[in-house]
């Protein structure tokens, strides 16, 4: 159905429509690029995860327990549903690097010799795996090596169970078990101070004093085995050895983060692009309806010449198709670029052998289809007019559209309204669907800006709450061993330290039904001043005298209730196990927490005394001196300056959020200008005849301008409140999808953010009005009246 002359007409018409084409194309570019980058990233992540897990034999079943004879593995291997299983030792300890004064937390994992190992295989980035040697050879996880600039051949001291020895790096590796290398007890990832290390059985068994003993089992299930049944069998075998319950891959920490990210990426490939593409579809609809109206005589001529309706429709559909392709194709390329940037951020957190972004053909096709289809649908509804138009009718001037008094007039207010206002209202309500869609479009723009701005607000709020209301100290000091209260009093002798409060923090495993989570439990003495636990309304929560105070996360994710009991395994010292009552939930913003009173915690630990964390108030002038002094204390494991934490946090989050906000604002501006400019443009061209008549009747340019302005301003006014509410809703929805274990953002939006959103809309309005002012100036009165519309 290709007709050359029609195609020539098509391109010339498009040239005429270039402003509208560009504004629509920008929306399509935004939508398609977001869709393509997110979908490709989703696919890249998913496929790299699948192949990595498969090729490196990521285990299906995991179990950790106090200690069991190594022979136990034979029993596990014989269980129904188990294909292969390995026993190992996992032991936490410390690593002393020459480059940083405080030691880093280390998780040491026993490396089964290559010929015996099938599961959780290491991918060697550089160097080789440890072999038996006179010195201890060690493989370091890439994340830690990169953060601390470690290279092959570097040596450092490792401390396991109080025994310290030198180790030499022979390999820098990654493992499917630690794609996301997170210290389970820390609130935020900190690759400087937490790392994974692999070493051969002999040195680890010796240092951990665990010869012929295992405390961790990993297993692969045979095909078709039922996970629940297998877990039960494994638990049965391990029960006598202090097993806290075997778990499946789904609950493995690193995997949980990976899965979450994949899920979120998929969701973001759908939600935000939809907004842009729907707005683009709506714009296409008005542009095309308007075009068909302007082209009435041309369409009639084509019909009179003998062109079929479908040929004419196809002609206009081609026009939309090109308008959309102008957006969709660059959108795909931009998506590729965004995807690469996105993957770079992933590479900082996720350690895969080769996480490379590849623009997937599927994503490109989805992007293309998604970029075109809504607009074609929007355009199609605009094209129905072609079918309704009989050529003879089209040759005549259209009969005046059937206007009615607007709703407002029907309420009986007409006597007080000027003729001009009546014209404005009748025009607006003449096409209620279009009015509604325009208003919705402006709402979408507002909502997107509010979402963008809210990130800033919420991080500011988060920081202020966390670092000013919850952590009120200036410094916090962690000790290697618990110390008596007298040692704290000694700290007060250091000049510059104004106050000191001790706490006890122990690593523990919380267990409830099928759930388990490693987490630090803090024991709080009475009358503590420098730290606070807060509820949703930022009110102080007292630490309960009995029982435990947990993050709200456990209520939501585990279904825990106040009054229920939870099992706790302490992961240091005598490894005591106890059960305690949930006393309350706290609304923590960063990370998860578990808090008890100091005395009851000590009782459970079966210890007499001991603080291992001290928070300090420090004279700001002497802050540096105090810091240096504390660093030289032999018992001290780490000194944290709150200011540094604050800055570090701002550096990692702040930059990312600012970029994100900027991008959203630019995108929203594209929506706002797209809608407002086109709305102004269309309403002007629809009524240029009417405007010219008004001018001839003696109305000034100013009053004509005022009428058109009033229409768009009315639309914007109608959109402001619902738009801001929609923004709040969108923020609320995005918060729901945030990983609640890392951050729990309260929905908090500053009034200034709403003001900024409205300002952006006003900017788009002014921009569009300036263009309209120029158009009004250029109305040729005589020509305008000749146009047969």
């Amino acid at each position, binding site marked *: 159905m290709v007709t050359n002359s029609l195609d020539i007409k098509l391109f010339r018409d498009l040239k005429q429509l270039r402003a509208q084409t560009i504004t629509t194309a920008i929306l399509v570019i935004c939508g398609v690029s977001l869709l393509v980058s997110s979908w490709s990233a989703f696919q890249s992540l998913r496929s790299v995860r699948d192949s990595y897990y498969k090729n490196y034999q990521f285990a299906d079943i995991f179990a950790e327990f106090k200690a069991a004879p190594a022979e136990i593995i034979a029993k596990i291997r014989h269980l129904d549903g188990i294909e292969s299983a390995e026993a190992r030792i996992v032991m936490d300890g410390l690593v002393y690097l020459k480059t940083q004064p405080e030691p880093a937390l280390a998780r040491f994992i026993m490396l089964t010799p290559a010929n015996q190992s099938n599961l959780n295989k290491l991918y060697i980035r550089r160097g080789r795996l440890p072999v038996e040697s006179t010195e201890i050879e060690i493989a370091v996880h890439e994340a830690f090596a990169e953060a601390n600039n470690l290279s092959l051949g570097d040596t450092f001291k490792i401390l396991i169970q109080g025994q310290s020895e030198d180790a030499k790096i022979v390999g820098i590796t990654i493992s499917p078990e630690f794609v996301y290398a997170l210290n389970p007890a820390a609130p935020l990832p900190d690759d400087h101070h937490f790392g994974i290390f692999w070493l051969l059985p002999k040195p680890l068994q010796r240092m951990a004093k665990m010869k012929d003993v295992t405390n961790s089992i990993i297993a692969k299930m045979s095909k078709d085995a039922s996970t629940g049944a297998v877990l039960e069998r494994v638990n049965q075998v391990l029960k006598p050895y202090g097993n806290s319950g075997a778990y499946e891959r789904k609950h493995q920490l690193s995997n949980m983060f990976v899965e979450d990210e994949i899920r979120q990426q998929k969701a973001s490939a759908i939600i935000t692009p939809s907004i842009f593409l729907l707005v683009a579809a709506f714009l296409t609809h008005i542009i095309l309806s308007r075009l068909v109206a302007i082209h009435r005589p*041309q369409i009639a001529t084509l019909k*009179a010449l003998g062109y079929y309706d479908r040929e004419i429709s196809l002609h206009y559909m081609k026009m939309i198709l090109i308008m959309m392709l102008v957006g969709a194709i660059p959108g795909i390329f931009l998506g590729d670029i965004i995807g690469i940037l996105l993957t770079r951020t992933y590479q900082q957190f996720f350690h895969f052998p080769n996480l490379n972004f590849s623009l997937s053909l599927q994503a490109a096709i989805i992007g293309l289809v998604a970029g075109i289809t809504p607009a074609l649908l929007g355009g199609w509804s605009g094209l129905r007019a072609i079918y309704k138009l009989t050529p003879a009718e089209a040759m005549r001037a259209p009969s005046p559209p059937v206007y009615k008094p607007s709703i407002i007039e029907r309420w009986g207010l007409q006597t007080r309204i000027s003729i001009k206002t009546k014209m404005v209202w009748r025009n607006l309500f003449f096409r209620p669907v279009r009015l509604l869609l325009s208003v919705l479009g402006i709402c979408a723009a507002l909502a997107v800006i509010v979402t963008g701005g809210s990130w800033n607000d919420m991080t500011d709020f988060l920081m202020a709450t966390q670092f000013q209301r919850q952590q009120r100290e200036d410094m916090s000091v962690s000790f290697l061993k618990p110390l008596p209260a007298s040692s704290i009093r000694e700290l007060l002798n250091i000049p510059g330290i104004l106050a000191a409060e001790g706490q006890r923090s122990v690593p523990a495993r919380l267990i409830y039904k099928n759930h388990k989570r490693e987490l630090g439990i803090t024991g709080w003495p009475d009358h503590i001043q420098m730290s606070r636990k807060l509820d949703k309304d930022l009110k102080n929560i007292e630490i309960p005298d009995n029982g435990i105070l947990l993050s709200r996360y456990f209520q939501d994710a585990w279904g825990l209730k106040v009054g229920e009991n939870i099992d706790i395994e302490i992961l240091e010292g005598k490894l005591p196990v106890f059960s305690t009552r949930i006393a309350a939930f706290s609304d923590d913003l960063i990370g998860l927490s578990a808090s008890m009173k100091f005395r009851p915690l000590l009782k459970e630990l079966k210890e007499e005394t001991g603080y291992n964390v001290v928070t300090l108030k420090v004279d700001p002038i002497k802050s540096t001196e105090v810091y240096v002094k504390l660093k030289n204390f032999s018992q001290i494991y780490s000194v944290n300056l709150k200011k540094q934490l604050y800055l570090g946090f701002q550096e990692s989050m702040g930059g990312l959020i600012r970029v994100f906000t900027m991008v959203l604002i630019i995108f929203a501006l594209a929506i706002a200008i797209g809608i407002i400019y086109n709305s102004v443009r269309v309403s002007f061209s629809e009524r240029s005849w009417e405007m010219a008549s008004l001018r001839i009747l003696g109305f000034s340019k100013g009053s004509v301008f005022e009428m058109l302005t009033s229409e768009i301003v009315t639309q914007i006014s109608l959109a402001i409140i619902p738009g801001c509410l929609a923004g709040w809703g969108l923020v609320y929805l995005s918060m729901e999808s945030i990983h609640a274990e890392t951050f729990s953002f309260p929905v908090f939006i500053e009034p200034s953010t709403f003001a900024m959103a409205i300002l952006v809309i006003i900017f788009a309005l002014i921009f569009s009005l300036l263009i309209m002012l120029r158009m009004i100036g250029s109305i040729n009165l005589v020509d305008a009246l000749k146009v047969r519309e």
Partner: protein
Amino acid sequence: MQDNQFSEVLFSAKQLSKIYRMGEIDVHALREISLELFAGEIVVLLGPSGSGKSTLLNILGGLDNPTSGEVHYKEHNLVTATEKELTTFRREHVGFVFQFYNLIPSLTAEENVTLATEIALSPISSNLALHLVGLEDRAHHFPSQLSGGEQQRIAIARAVAKRPDILLCDEPTGALDYTTGKKVLETLLRVNSEIATLVVIITHNASIAGIADRVIKMANGRIHSVATNSKRMSVEDIQW
């Protein structure tokens, strides 16, 4: 009543009526009209505005359907024809010339003609069509670069390029000055003599009636009179 040279009946209409709804008012545009049109003749439909001439022309050209009555083009019943069949009919047999030319503004003169030749069964070349209206040198001009008369002649070229059996012209000189109007009429006569097309011209200008073989006068949606000119006048001889 007819000359022997026009014996093949192209159109026959019986009891044609057309009622329009304009907004909320009924307009009786045609009231029970019957007539026959013959291949190769020039017919002028004369009447004041609102007399129903354009409505009749539109129905004959398959642009519109009557409210009641019958129209046949040769053996084709235009009343029962579907929208698609009417389009095919126009495509294959009818050329239109409109008062306001209705050129596509984004296409050049030649491209406007090609627009018609591309869908016609046995078109003449667009060059030849432009030659026929004497505007081959304006082929690459856009409508906005042409005078009214030139635009109308391009519109005629576009209409005749399909080699239509019928050329329906709605006030072809209505928007033109005297000299240009005459030029356009000459062009129509030339087309009629060179490709033997039935030419129907609507006008409210009685002077034009002289160039026709037959003159049908209309008023109030009815045929008032049908007159046969024993000898057609040349365009030079008519005055208005």
